């Protein structure tokens, strides 16, 4: 028996993973010693592109994890294949399959997060330090997209609050804003969208400090594939998926509600809060039901749960708030 292997990888996902691992080993061997880790990652990406344009640069690297009481039970996991090939990461194209094809060049090492705004001192965190800050937990969460589809994903990370404590925000900090990586050379411009990058999202401080909000480094026992927001992202399971910003490079603490990408584009459809709420429709479609990804077409529809089923943990954050007004 293998020690340290997470129990929930479907057998279907193992074979291709081994191939990636072998390729990783080969690539690592080929460039090791001579160059820095950062250069190695870039070089590996280039080489990998020659072998297979679909290579997931760091995917395949296993992460050591511990169990978490905050994990969601009783749901079938969405397959690794679906989780990693059905993505909204518009910087890499608007088709669901585009990020898994185009995100190979995302340079996930070296990687830092700049922290500024209402903090004691601005700081820079290195990804390697962040990975060691707290033990990484296995957290299965439901993931509900504003487009009315949903998944169940075994994420890996620790509570965002643990990271925020390290940032030492001032008492005047009421909101936190996240910025995603953007480089036009990597995320090539195309005529399929007209959105102002870099992507920005935000949370109210008490939302960000809720233990369910996850600073996420991996899924399915491994580091995040690029298309899922490598090397580090936010996951806020009681909100629509776009609130969970990917590939975070900046965190800013603010005394005012920050501007966020989708809210700027269409405030009538994408509120700042965007809590999963079956009683408040998107102007274009009902949010009462959702389509579970990976099910056959005649069995996809499920009822959407208030706060995506996380009411017990988060409903108190919104006591006294009119959730129709603050959608």
């Amino acid at each position, binding site marked *: 028996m293998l020690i340290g292997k997470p129990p929930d990888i479907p057998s279907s996902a193992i074979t291709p993973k081994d191939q990636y691992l072998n390729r990783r080993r080969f690539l690592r061997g080929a460039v090791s010693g001579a160059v820095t880790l950062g250069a190695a990652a870039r070089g590996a990406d280039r080489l990998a592109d020659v072998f297979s344009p679909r290579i997931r640069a760091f995917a395949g690297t296993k992460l050591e994890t511990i169990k978490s009481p905050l994990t969601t039970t009783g749901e079938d996991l969405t397959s690794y294949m679906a989780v990693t090939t*059905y993505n909204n990461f518009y910087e890499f194209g*608007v088709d669901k399959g585009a990020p898994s094809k185009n995100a190979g060049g995302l340079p996930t090492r070296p990687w830092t997060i700049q922290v500024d705004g209402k903090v004691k001192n601005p700081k820079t965190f290195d990804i390697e330090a962040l990975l060691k800050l707290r033990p990484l937990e296995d957290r299965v969460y439901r993931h509900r997209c504003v487009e009315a*589809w949903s998944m169940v994903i075994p994420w890996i990370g620790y509570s965002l609050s643990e990271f925020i404590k390290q940032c030492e925000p001032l008492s005047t900090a009421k909101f936190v804003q996240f910025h995603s990586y953007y480089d036009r050379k990597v995320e090539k411009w195309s005529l399929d969208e007209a959105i102002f990058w870099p992507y920005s999202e935000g949370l109210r401080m008490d939302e960000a400090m809720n233990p369910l909000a996850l600073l996420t480094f991996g899924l399915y026992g491994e580091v995040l594939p690029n298309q899922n927001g490598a090397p580090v992202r936010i996951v806020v399971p009681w909100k629509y998926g776009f609130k969970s910003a990917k590939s975070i490079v900046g965190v800013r603490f603010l005394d005012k509600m920050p501007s966020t990408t989708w809210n700027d*584009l269409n405030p009538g459809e994408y509120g700042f809060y965007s809590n999963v709420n079956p009683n408040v429709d998107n102007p274009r479609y009902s949010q009462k039901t959702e389509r579970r990804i990976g099910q056959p077409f005649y069995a996809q*529809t499920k009822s959407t749960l208030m706060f995506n089923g996380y009411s017990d943990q988060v409903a108190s954050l919104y006591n006294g708030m009119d959730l129709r007004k603050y959608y």
Partner: protein
Amino acid sequence: MKRSTLILPKTLTWIVCLWQFGLLVYGAFTNNLGPDPTANIELSTGYTTLLLLIISLAISPLRKLFPRLSWLIRFRRLIGLFAFFYATLHMIAYVALYANFDVRSMLTDIASRRFITMGVAAWLLLLPLALTSTTWAIGKLGGKNWNRLHTLVYAAAVCGVIHFWWQVKTGVLSPLNLTISLAILFAIRPILAWRQRRKSQQVQAGTIAPGK
């Protein structure tokens, strides 16, 4: 062009037009419609509808520009009917998979969601065109009336493209290709008409010989 020479291109047209449907049927039976089969069925049938509509609209300008291609007219009805076929599949997929046959939710959708209103309008505009597509109906209506009725296809295509724009998120430009194609087809009509007028004037003035 002779009837027998048309058999091969007609067969090919059938195959090309049925390709997307075949993929969906095969995918449905093998459970191989991708991670979000419902969305796949809905989006692919919608896109194919607009694509076929625009192709069918391109036929008459092409004939005017290149008289040697005038035989293309023999394919227009077939392509137009396939556009209606996909539009109907698109509609059925909405009724069955999105609205779950719930009449009340469909009425709410039509009343309050403008992209659905526009989509239904586009389908309703195509319906009389499909119903009057038989040779019998053309004879019954008379060529002039039939032609007038069938200019509705432009309205249907415009409604379809607006439906597409209203369906995608703000900032997403995926309907752009189809929109530009349709805009070109609209722009080319007055240009071709002007060219035609000038030619006939020249013929009348005797500057060029009639015929070629």
